[in-house]
């Protein structure tokens, strides 16, 4: 089961991911990130505090938007990951390519997003 909720807060798009992000459910995240790309969002902050599990399908969705967000000048980051989820990102070295923070405050402060 995966639930994704989005909340707009001025120039920030907050995305909440809850549940398991796998080969069956990752299409839901893909749709949300694709919409954010098309809208050329200024900042996309993703709350992963309730993300219980991620497989390569979920990682692949995040990876596939790195270049587009960079081109659009979108500030894009994840925060609140559990140790086991963080470990899956680390297995591929993705923590060096995607900004990952402990808290929402850290994520906002890193780019003066308010």
């Amino acid at each position: 089961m995966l639930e994704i909720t989005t909340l707009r807060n001025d120039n920030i798009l907050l995305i909440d991911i809850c549940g398991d992000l796998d080969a069956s459910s990752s299409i839901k995240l893909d749709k949300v990130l694709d919409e954010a790309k098309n809208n050329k969002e200024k900042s996309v902050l993703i709350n992963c505090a309730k993300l219980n599990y991620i497989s390569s399908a979920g990682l692949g969705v995040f990876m596939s938007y790195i270049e587009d967000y960079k081109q659009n000048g979108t500030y894009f980051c994840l925060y609140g990951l559990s140790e086991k989820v963080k470990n899956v990102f680390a297995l591929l070295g993705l923590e060096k390519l995607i900004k990952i923070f402990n808290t929402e405050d850290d994520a906002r402060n890193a780019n003066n997003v308010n």
Partner: protein
Amino acid sequence: MTLEMQTTLINFSVNTSLDELEMVRTTISEQLVKFPLTEIEINQIVLSVDEICANLVLHAEKKKLADSIEISLIKEENGIRVNILDHCISYNPITNKENNIDSLIKERKKGGIGLILVNRIMDNIEYRIEETYNICSLFKRMKFEVA
């Protein structure tokens, strides 16, 4: 390795459907939590099984094959083994060469990293094609405390 050193923890079958993956993960996790493994170690084994099953399902769907996958979780003296058996057209995941992460990102690819994860997690991966089935055997070295 003698048979006395192996204990089959569970043996179960699932349909070749992506909807079954959550059940596969839950079933494997429920067995592994009985051992003194960290949450990260358990998640890594679960992830590896999930990746192999997802590959089989996607391959089976592409070939329009409806079949089942049988999974055995075995505790060996020095680690955990998972055997994933299918009756589909043989599909050897190990023959795929490892993709380059930077290239995948530049090409905006969403796939091609599952088997990299499995290779980085597992200590040994074998794939055999038998007469009526194919078997992918994953092994992760583990230290179990002596009871």
